[in-house]
């Protein structure tokens, strides 16, 4: 879990190099890789996979996991198509209802984690079976054909090699990126992760995170603007272990263990 928290900035560069080399090798080995249609298909797969990965990323940033992403996605897709195909709902309403259902499923996960304090891995493993089971129980594993043409043509639409579908992903990705950079909610995710695991509640961000843990509603009021960047800067500029305040759970008489000392001297999290 600790390793998931820090994302080294060098890693992204390395990945970019691997990506570029991979593309180069593939386009040399199989020239059809660069064909317009293949780029379109690859881009479309990418735009779906990226959204799935972002769905996991926001949960990982809390230091938790969500194994039910796949079943929530499947359930939402089935409900949306069921509303459109079976009940003839107009497309926007069905999509809205589907997104709402996704939010509800996520909030169910969140509430259960909050109330039961069960490890999110086990909890979402259980709910993933529940969501997938509901999906199969409703549909008896028969797929919906004849999806409205607006939907299916949207998936096929392309401008050159650029899949129109990718626009959705790009907007959401940029939105999430700017959210983690600027908004107080986004920037405090890593704080919740660290403070949750350490259980400290003294500092501003600790207060914030405990407040968040107490009130699991979807739009908490943030008590104070909390900028992770100032913390990060401080901890880098001065050698003092400012990033991770010690946990009050440890009795002050006991000397800090090596592990704790090492942890608190290093910056404990960083956005890429």
């Amino acid at each position, binding site marked *: 879990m600790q*390793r*998931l928290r820090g994302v080294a900035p060098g890693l992204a560069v390395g990945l970019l190099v691997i990506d570029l080399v991979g593309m180069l090798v593939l386009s040399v080995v199989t020239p059809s890789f660069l064909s317009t249609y293949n780029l379109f298909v690859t881009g479309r797969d990418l735009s779906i996979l990226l959204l799935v990965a972002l769905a996991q990323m926001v949960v990982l940033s809390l230091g938790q996991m969500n194994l039910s992403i796949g079943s929530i996605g499947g359930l939402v897709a089935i409900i949306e198509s069921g509303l459109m195909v079976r009940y003839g709902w107009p497309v926007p309403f069905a999509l809205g209802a589907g997104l709402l259902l996704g939010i509800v499923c996520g909030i169910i996960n969140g509430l259960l984690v909050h109330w*039961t304090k*069960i490890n999110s891995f*086990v909890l979402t*493993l259980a709910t993933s079976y529940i969501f997938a*089971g509901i999906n199969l129980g409703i549909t008896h594993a028969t797929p919906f054909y004849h999806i409205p043409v607006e939907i299916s043509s949207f998936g096929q639409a392309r401008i050159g090699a650029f899949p129109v579908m990718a626009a959705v992903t790009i907007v959401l990705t940029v939105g999430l990126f700017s959210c983690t950079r600027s908004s107080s909610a986004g920037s405090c995710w890593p704080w919740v992760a660290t403070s949750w695991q350490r259980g400290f509640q003294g500092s501003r961000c600790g207060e914030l995170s405990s407040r968040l843990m107490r009130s699991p509603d979807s739009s908490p009021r943030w008590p104070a603007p909390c900028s992770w960047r100032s913390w990060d800067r401080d901890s880098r500029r001065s050698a003092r272990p400012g990033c991770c305040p010690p946990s009050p759970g440890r009795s002050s008489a006991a000397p800090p263990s090596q592990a704790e000392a090492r942890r608190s001297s290093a910056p404990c999290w960083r956005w890429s």
Partner: protein
Amino acid sequence: LLALLIVTVGFWIFFSVAASGFTSDFNLFSLLRFAAIQITIGFAQMVVLSIGDMNLAVGAIGGATGMIAGWVMQILGLPPEVAVLFALAVGMLLGFGNALLITWTRINSFIVTLATASLITGAMLILTHAHPFSQLPDSFTSFSEIEVAGLPMSPLVLVMLGVAAALFFLYRNLSLGKEMLAVGANRQAARMSGLSVDRVVLSTHGLSGVLAGTAGLMAISADHTASPSLGSDWLLASFVSPAIGGTLLSGGLVSVPGTVLGGVLLATISNGLLLVNIDNFWITVFLGVVLLLAVGLDRLTRAAGGAAS
């Protein structure tokens, strides 16, 4: 554990009243055999949970070893004993491979085994071309069919009980078992008190591989077929039995009898719900709910106990 026993007995009473044929010899036989396999899968996960790791490759290793045993018996025509030994050795090697990757790269075991799971399954599919082996020798398949001492109990149940006894002994009496729990409870402390954590991780993942291989062999013996899809649905089962039985997912605490009871409960529920004509799909929902309830109850009782003491 007592609560779990009461719940299990309660379900048995409920199903023997509500579902006709639940107590028939045939049904008890297949229920216990299914439970034995589920529990062995749970053990494969339990040992890695005890050191605070996870092994998402349990199903992949079980499926691969099952396919290898099928290949050795059907294509090479070697006797089942050889196939079993060979398959278990492969299971152990795959477990060692996981452990080496974890200790060398220091990557989280979750990520490592997630990756090796698809590696192992992929290699197995490439090597076997996804063809099942269905002509297994009679001496191997009949092992799961005979009844022990006239009771509705397959020898597989005895295998499972033997494994359970061995694991119980391991955690209760052997130094390796204690070391595993120490590593699970606090890895840093274990390292600082002179334990070779890497060695413990290595033996634990090897043991998990052997147990997953055992489960794979039991499953192909019961199915009479080594099918490439074997193990693909083991993930929930591998976590449910230990989690219901009170094994801590963060490591340091295991319960072998709890895992046995958890597996029996899991098998009872899926068998009983099928008998009372509940749609197979809804059983999945029910299993998820049972896992939630079991872990939640465990939390509650532990919190209550902690407050009292």
